[in-house]
């Protein structure tokens, strides 16, 4: 256990960082709002204070607040499930995409995007929901397949699962490539944005499913902090400490599939958050999951909001896919960690 004084300061700093990212995310954009106006609009919207100017309420309430909430939840869920997978695979290089959920979701989305452009048109009002549902279903299906392939004699072979995940990810990538080849220019653009992720188009209606899943993941995973710690000793050791490991593995995989599936369905594929955030937090608070999980959730939310700020401010008035930003920050940072840990 690290000195609780240090832990308290770290959590205070992380919470401060998160608040800063929320404030900037609400205040900055094509129209920059002063802090007072942002707060005023929030209070006005929640009915706690006097109504703010209609313009500020519209910008904050209809555009930036749903986008900020989406970013918070996607970042927190990706970071939390990243911790869960690194614990399950007992490998700090594991990523929530390892069990095939991300590529399955991308495949589901790609099939719908290209299918709709070539063979049928859906009313514009329900199109985003069909797309999200297809992504969610694709993620769960591929993960279910990976899980089945990893079962032997009633036990889940983690190493076999990992290999099955790699193979199915490659297969899904090939099919997505085929879809790209078949796509026309407009569809190609939609596919690209999906594969690189974006918080664009956030609305309250699309937030609800993710909100439910994110709350579930954020409440449930920390309750498994002890067994995640025990798993790091080894599966047998965790069993000898009294845990039902087969049950725990099922729960962790289901939790990750639901969380990542919902996150990808809402915002597309956003890489590196699930890998880098847990890694970085482990350097700060140590490997104890009782601290690592909450720290990663806070940092994941903040990181995604900062990345989204960069994505929409750097090339304004246009917008970059957020996955490009997270990879541009994440990959060099990861290399830096790698080189540093060798010395």
């Amino acid at each position, binding site marked *: *256990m*690290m000195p609780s004084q240090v832990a308290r300061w770290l959590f205070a700093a992380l919470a401060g960082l998160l608040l800063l990212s929320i404030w900037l995310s609400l205040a900055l954009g094509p129209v920059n709002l002063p802090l007072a106006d942002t707060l005023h609009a929030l209070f006005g919207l929640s009915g706690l204070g006097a109504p703010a100017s209609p313009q500020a309420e519209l910008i904050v309430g209809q555009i930036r607040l749903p986008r900020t909430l989406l970013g918070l939840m996607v970042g927190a869920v990706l970071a939390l499930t990243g911790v869960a997978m690194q614990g399950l695979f*007992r*490998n*700090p290089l594991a990523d929530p995409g390892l069990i095939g959920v991300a590529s399955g979701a991308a495949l589901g989305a790609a099939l719908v995007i290209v299918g709709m452009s070539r063979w049928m048109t859906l009313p514009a009002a329900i199109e985003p929901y069909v797309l999200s549902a297809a992504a969610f279903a694709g993620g769960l299906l591929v993960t279910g397949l990976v899980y089945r392939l990893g079962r032997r004699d009633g036990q889940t072979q983690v190493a076999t699962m990992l290999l099955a995940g790699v193979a199915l990810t490659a297969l899904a990538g090939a099919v997505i490539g085929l879809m790209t080849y078949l796509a026309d220019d407009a569809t190609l653009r939609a596919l690209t944005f999906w594969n690189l992720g974006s918080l664009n188009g956030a609305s309250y209606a699309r937030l609800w499913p993710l909100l439910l899943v994110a709350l579930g993941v954020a409440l449930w995973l920390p309750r498994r902090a*002890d067994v995640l*710690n*025990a798993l*790091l*000793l*080894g599966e*047998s*050791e965790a*069993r*000898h*400490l*009294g*845990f*039902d490991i087969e049950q725990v593995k099922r729960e962790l995989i289901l939790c990750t599939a639901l969380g990542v599936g919902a996150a990808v369905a809402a915002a597309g594929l956003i890489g590196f958050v699930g890998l880098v955030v847990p890694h970085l937090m*482990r350097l700060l608070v*140590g*490997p*104890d999951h009782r601290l690592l999980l909450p720290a990663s959730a806070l940092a994941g939310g903040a990181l995604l909001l900062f990345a989204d700020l960069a994505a929409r401010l750097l090339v304004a008035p246009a917008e970059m896919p957020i996955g490009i930003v997270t990879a541009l920050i994440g990959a060099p940072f990861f290399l830096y960690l790698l080189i540093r840990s060798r010395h």
Partner: protein
Amino acid sequence: MMQADGLGVSRGGRSVLRGVSLGLRPGQVLGVLGPNGAGKSSLLGLLSGELRADAGSVLLDGQLLQDWPGRQRAQRLAVLPQTSSLGFGFQVKQVVRMGRMPHDTGLALDQQIVEQVLEAVDASHLAGRNYLQLSGGERQRVHLARVLAQLWPGADGQVLLLDEPTSMLDPLHQLSVLDAVRRFADHGASVLVILHDLNLAARYCDQLLLLGDGGVQASGSPEQVLQPAALQRVFGIDVLVQRHPERGHPLIIAR
């Protein structure tokens, strides 16, 4: 307390163990000896529930091993594997504290127990160190402390299974660690320990089980088991057996 009857297991069509029976009595240390591939680790796997037996049964504290709910089993049965694959930088006291997971005894008592078991394996000075920066022998002592913490202070009905706990230790710690295990057993728990060093086995064990070729070749007190003929047959070594001049237990000398 643990009772195993007629244990047998095969792997890939080859019989690894057959007809092994043994009893672990309160306060006793049972040593298991045998050459590589004799089935020692398979026996430990069966007794810990890691392996499913093809034949025979294991009773823990009077109840079938597989019928114990996980947590209650873990309060009575602790297992030290031969090697550990822990690859994350916990502090040593965090690792040892994990042994307290099956219990709800509270932070204060747990911390006290962590201190006592670290003291017992002569690792108090490592408490604040990063596990990954320890040597192999230090890590082995930390894991022994962890499984001791799981049963500490040890009582009648509890069982500790140790797979070669001294394999990476220097001569001083081989003795001090087995001393600690011996003292732990004196509180009433039963201990089974797999050893390779015949003289350590003679010095610390009340009973010995000599495994060879998947079956029991000899069992009984160290004086009964450590006979030149049996050791010749099982290990293929030519030895003299004498009495330890001060302690009286058998002393094995290679010729």
